[in-house]
């Protein structure tokens, strides 16, 4: 225990919280390997997973190459899908300690899953939990890609096994604790703490993710048929700007709820 009375036991929490996600991550990685091997080649597919470790960007780039688009367009699609990491990186930064190298390394292991696992509400992040969520996200992703690449001919069409729905289901599983905190006690406790520390009502803190999710889904559905790959994700992320609503008015609304 340190001077402030906090026992640094959060890294096992990050590792433990990431265990249920390891298998779905491996399965999504396998789907990527299956789809990428015939298009990019076996070795480049595995290297891309190991070097980039960004599912949405990899699928976005792959979809462009597979549909006959140029590599520049594929890279742009991949980078566009990754721009969501910019606000995520700025969100976790204030919770970080250490010099630039340590912050760089901690930022480099950021992923969608670790962002959720490390979230403590009220804009605060448990960086230890976030970092320790990394091993069981990164290595299953690569292992899954290798299995997909190697077994591409045996497994065949991923839609035959329902593997194509795994990617959206994986992201939905990350969002569920935000949307239904009543069913996730640990998450509910953190949200209560966040609402108290920010002077906001719990009811409003609970409603806000639902509003953001619905708005983001609506934006994505509208833009998907109209814009290039990656654009809907970035624009839909703007729904999170609802969180900038002044705490003063939010507190009042929360009290009424």
């Amino acid at each position: 225990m340190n001077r402030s009375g906090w026992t640094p036991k959060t890294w096992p929490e990050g590792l433990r919280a990431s265990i249920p996600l390891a298998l779905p991550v491996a399965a999504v990685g396998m789907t990527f390997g299956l789809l990428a091997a015939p298009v990019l080649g076996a070795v480049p597919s595995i290297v891309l997973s190991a070097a980039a470790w960004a599912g949405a960007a990899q699928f976005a780039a792959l979809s462009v190459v597979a549909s006959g688009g140029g590599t520049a367009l594929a890279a742009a699609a991949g980078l566009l899908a990754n721009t969501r990491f910019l606000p995520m990186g700025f969100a976790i930064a204030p919770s970080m300690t250490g010099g630039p190298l340590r912050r760089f390394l901690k930022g480099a292991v950021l992923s969608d899953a670790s962002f959720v696992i490390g979230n403590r509400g009220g804009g605060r992040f448990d960086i230890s939990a976030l970092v320790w969520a990394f091993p069981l996200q990164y290595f299953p992703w690569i292992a899954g890609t290798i299995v997909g690449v190697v077994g591409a001919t045996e497994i065949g069409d991923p839609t035959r096994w329902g593997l194509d729905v795994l990617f959206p289901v994986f992201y939905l599983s990350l969002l569920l604790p935000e949307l239904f905190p009543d069913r996730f006690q640990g998450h509910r406790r953190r949200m209560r703490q966040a609402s108290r520390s920010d002077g906001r009502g719990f009811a409003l803190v609970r409603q806000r993710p639902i509003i953001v999710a619905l708005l983001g889904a609506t934006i994505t559905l509208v833009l998907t048929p109209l814009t290039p790959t990656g654009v809907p994700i970035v624009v839909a992320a703007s729904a999170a700007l609802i969180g900038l609503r002044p705490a003063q008015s939010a507190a009042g609304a929360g009290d009424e709820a």
Partner: protein
Amino acid sequence: MRIWGLIVVVALGTVLTKTLGPLLAGGGSHLRRSAESSLWSPRL
């Protein structure tokens, strides 16, 4: 060869987007605030 270029660009872009915030936004402001509120005590 173009595929390898694509891999390099996507990989570098990923690292850049993930680390830009932690590098530019500094660190510790929330930890200090948390220590003051004692709701979530940080490692100091």
